[in-house]
């Protein structure tokens, strides 16, 4: 009886903590969005009201540190970690500076024990971290910021571009987002490693995914596993039949979309992914066809990449009208290369850098090469040197902020 009561109280405290954290998160991030949406609905129903929204300044990294705290609450409730009574350590867990602003979201069960240990300087770990930091800077300064020179005008001034130019712009955006976010994650993970922490990985060659499901196992891993463990599985996961499973996928992916920001475009982006996951699951028999055929696998990888790119057009556009206009212009097949010639240097540089990143992503996944790299200090030293020189030679230093800082 006593145990039952304890369990009950524990549950109440968990709900209260979730309510407080999610409530603050909601007010800062979504209140104005919901007020706007409400006014829109009322306006459509011919109720004209004076529009009032709040002037709210969004705290930096709120999405990330709220999810860190929620992760602590869930892990504590599920007895996956112990209560952290030291306030300094708990604060460090929530706001550890390398990953404070844009992740990765590190689970309490993973990070709290590390914060409680005495940190030791280990040279090899420090160099490992440094390599990740340099690779992160390469992805951000060389890849993402170079691509943004062509991507930004494509999305800001769509009318001036032809179909092929816009298709290229959308493909570039997929890589820009990858370079930007994976770059930041790697810098954070690398800095953590240099200080003796292990945050895990956040991206694992996502554009080599051969299915949408596989993509989510490789892209923003800390967020996708968070939603899987704390939303999808508690909702019911794979347990209650196919239709319910699809319902949970729709809910989870919609929330994942909205996590990125209070905009209909993010919600639609999440829903597109949910629909793609559902279709893929329904046709899984076909997708399993000829698994070992490498040509077929390549086709699947390209197809999945194009689906992701298509969804990202919605993600990048300011609103749905712009997104539809952008997609329509691609399929118009008119004035094919308009707007591209002015940017030909950045297009050439972008394609070169994308090739380098894909090549590196492909080979770092080969275990033999990985092993050789990790065990040979000379190779690691030379890699560091090459990365530093490459950043200096290829980097775009226009101080473009990280895209994920806005989340």
């Amino acid at each position, binding site marked *: 009886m006593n145990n039952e009561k304890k369990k009950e109280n524990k549950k109440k405290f968990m709900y209260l903590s979730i309510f407080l954290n999610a409530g603050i998160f909601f007010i800062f991030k979504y209140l104005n969005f919901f007020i706007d949406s409400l006014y829109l609905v009322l306006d459509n129903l011919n109720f004209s009201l004076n529009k009032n929204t709040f002037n709210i300044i969004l705290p930096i990294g709120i999405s990330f540190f709220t999810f860190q705290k929620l992760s602590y609450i869930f892990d504590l409730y599920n007895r996956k970690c112990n209560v952290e009574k030291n306030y300094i350590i708990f604060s460090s867990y929530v706001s550890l500076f390398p990953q404070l602003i844009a992740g990765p979201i590190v689970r309490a069960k993973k990070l709290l024990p590390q914060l409680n240990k005495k940190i030791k300087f280990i*040279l090899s770990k420090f*160099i490992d971290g440094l390599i990740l930091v340099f690779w992160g800077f390469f992805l951000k300064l060389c890849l993402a910021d170079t691509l943004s020179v062509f991507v930004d005008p494509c999305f800001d001034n769509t009318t001036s571009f032809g179909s092929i130019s816009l298709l290229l712009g959308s493909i570039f955006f997929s890589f820009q987002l990858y370079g930007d976010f994976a770059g930041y994650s790697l810098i954070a993970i690398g800095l953590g490693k240099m200080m003796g922490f292990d945050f895990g990985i956040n991206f694992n060659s996502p554009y080599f995914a051969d299915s949408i499901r596989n993509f989510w196992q490789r892209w923003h891993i800390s967020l996708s596993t968070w939603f899987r463990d704390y939303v999808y599985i508690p909702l019911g996961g794979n347990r209650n039949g196919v239709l319910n499973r699809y319902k949970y996928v729709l809910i989870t992916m919609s929330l994942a979309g909205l996590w990125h920001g209070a905009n209909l475009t993010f919600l639609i982006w999440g829903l597109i992914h949910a629909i793609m996951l559902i279709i893929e699951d329904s046709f899984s028999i076909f997708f399993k066809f000829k698994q070992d055929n490498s040509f077929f696998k390549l086709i699947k990888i390209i197809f999945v990449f194009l689906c992701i790119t298509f969804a990202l057009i919605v993600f990048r556009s300011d609103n749905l009208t712009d997104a539809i206009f952008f997609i329509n212009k691609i399929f118009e097949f008119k004035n094919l290369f308009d707007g591209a010639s002015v940017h030909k*240097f*950045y297009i*050439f*540089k972008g394609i070169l850098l994308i090739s380098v990143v894909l090549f590196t992503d492909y080979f770092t996944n080969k275990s033999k090469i990985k092993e050789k790299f990790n065990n040979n200090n000379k190779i690691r*030293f030379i890699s*560091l*040197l090459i990365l*530093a*020189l490459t950043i*200096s*030679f*290829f*980097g775009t*230093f226009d101080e473009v902020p990280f895209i994920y800082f806005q989340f």
Partner: protein
Amino acid sequence: MKKQHLIIFFGFIISFLVVDRLSSFFLNSLLNKSTLPHAKLYAGNGQTKIMILGNSRGYRSFDENYFSKITKRKTINYSLLGASMQIHEIIIKDYLDIYNEYPKVILIELSSLTEGGNDAIKEFRVYGYKSKRVSKFVKNIYPKIYYGGKVSNLFQFNNSTFFNAIQKIFIPYEFKPLKGVMNSLIDINTINKNTFNINNDYYDENIKSLNRIINLCEEKNIKLYLIIAPYYPERLKFEENEYNLWVKKTNENIKNIPIIDFSMNIKNIRYFHDWKHINKDGVQLFNKILFDNLLYKDFL
């Protein structure tokens, strides 16, 4: 810190500096092989009798081959996209330092007094390796970029000018006029009347530069032509007052040298790529007008 850590740290810094300097030296020597006009200028192969300077309008409006054919004198167009008059001054002074024989004629397209900005020097900084003036200008305008280039010399080669110069080793440089005709519909909403802004330091600095160029040309006995290339008149009329003020103030501020104004000389839209730039047909027509009416008699 252990001794081993210090060795690795300093080893990395030294290796970085050595490889960086060696690579830069190699890239700089590659630059000497380029057929790009500015690369040739700084490599010592850019001697010319007629020198053309300007921003994109200067670059797109004058066909150096036509000039050479008519005058039978070597002509090189040293215009640079987005360049200011201050950058023209650097190019002229560097030229005079490098070559013993001065050009007979310098022709400057004047819109670089107000248009563009000093941004072009970011792309031009690759020549900072060879020109102290370029280097100093970068230091004054973009100190971060300047010191970045000091830490890593390779950074100085991180711009489109360098990659363009490399391409021009394999594909010889040639004048390429713009193709296509401008859209006849002028969107009045996009006109911000900022093209001929004379109330800023940028214009004042450029006027000072122009006056120094005039003095230099007088001193070295070089004939200087100040030209305004055609604008599409239908569009120019929206900024007519600003344009007239700009010409008036420029005339007042420069020493005894006339401005030759072709701004309204071409009226048909088919000669324009956009309202500021003439296209291939426009270049042919404009260059003919230039020589037929003004320059041919007394050009050299």
